[in-house]
């Protein structure tokens, strides 16, 4: 898959490779910074959600109507969390792409042989939580599990 990219890089003069490496490095830093910002935002939302859940656990002992208002707030934060986690995945994929390109360029400059499994091997390290502890596939029931099966079968997965 990345062979065509590698082949293209291999034909480039060193000066052009240096420039390309610099550009990808700049993009890498940009997406890494954005990703870290988003991760912090998510962490803060998760803390807020957890605090509200604790509050709700206390309120529910007193009266059900009292807890409903808190549950409404929790609902809104959950929706924001779903959105932010999806954006985080996108930022992370861009970070990965530029990191991968920097590596590929450096490998080319160093005369390292093309390894077709390189990207495949790097992905689990970078995306482990997006693969195993997925965003919308956790705590799924009913319609969601059906949806997941549909998606799985359409992509030929498990």
């Amino acid at each position, binding site marked *: *898959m*990345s062979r065509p990219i590698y082949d293209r890089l291999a034909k480039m003069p060193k000066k052009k490779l240096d420039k390309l490496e610099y*550009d*990808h490095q*700049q*993009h890498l830093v*940009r*997406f890494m910074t*954005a990703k870290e910002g988003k991760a912090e935002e998510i962490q803060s939302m998760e803390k807020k959600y957890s605090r509200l*859940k604790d509050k*709700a*656990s206390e309120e*529910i002992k007193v*009266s*059900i*109507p*009292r*807890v*409903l*208002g808190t*549950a*409404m*707030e*929790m*609902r*809104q934060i*959950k*929706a*924001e969390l*779903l*959105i932010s*986690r*999806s*954006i985080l*995945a*996108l*930022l992370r*994929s*861009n970070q*990965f*792409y*530029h990191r*991968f390109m920097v590596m590929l360029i450096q490998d080319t400059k160093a005369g390292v042989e093309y390894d077709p499994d390189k*990207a495949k091997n790097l992905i689990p390290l970078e*995306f482990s939580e*997006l*693969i195993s502890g*997925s*965003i*919308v596939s956790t*705590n799924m029931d*009913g*319609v*969601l599990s059906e*949806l997941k099966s549909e*998606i799985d079968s*359409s*992509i*030929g*997965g498990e």
Partner: protein
Amino acid sequence: MSNIIAWFSQSRIRSFVKLSTKKQNKIKTEIDLKFADQKQILDSRLSYAKDSARKADRLLSRGKKDKAKEAVNTFKLDLVSSQPVMNAYVSTSLEKHLLEVISMEGFEFPDLLEDIRKDIDFGLFSVNASNELDAIIKTEVDPFSELGIEL
């Protein structure tokens, strides 16, 4: 099969990258306005619902069970009426944030990753039609069942 990331395969989203900065900004401004309107409506619906819940609690503590039940019913109505707004808000918010990321210098669609691994979870971006998004939001954003509350 390639291209399962529904949102990224939309021609509207793909063509956004090719637009001039001026045109991109125009689209982003339109989305920002839509987002602000939907947020305002959603906040207002949620505020109504919270008021009804507080009212029900107050009435219940005063022993006015029937009136409290009525207030809880109003809450349920507010809750149900907030769902479509919530769905629209999530969809617009996703698009707004997606366009912001696309506008970043060096942005690449995750086609490369998609080719290598089929199991990377791009969350709500992987969801295809709006009814699927609705279903996910409804199920995933339900703290009531998490708290053991049956409405």
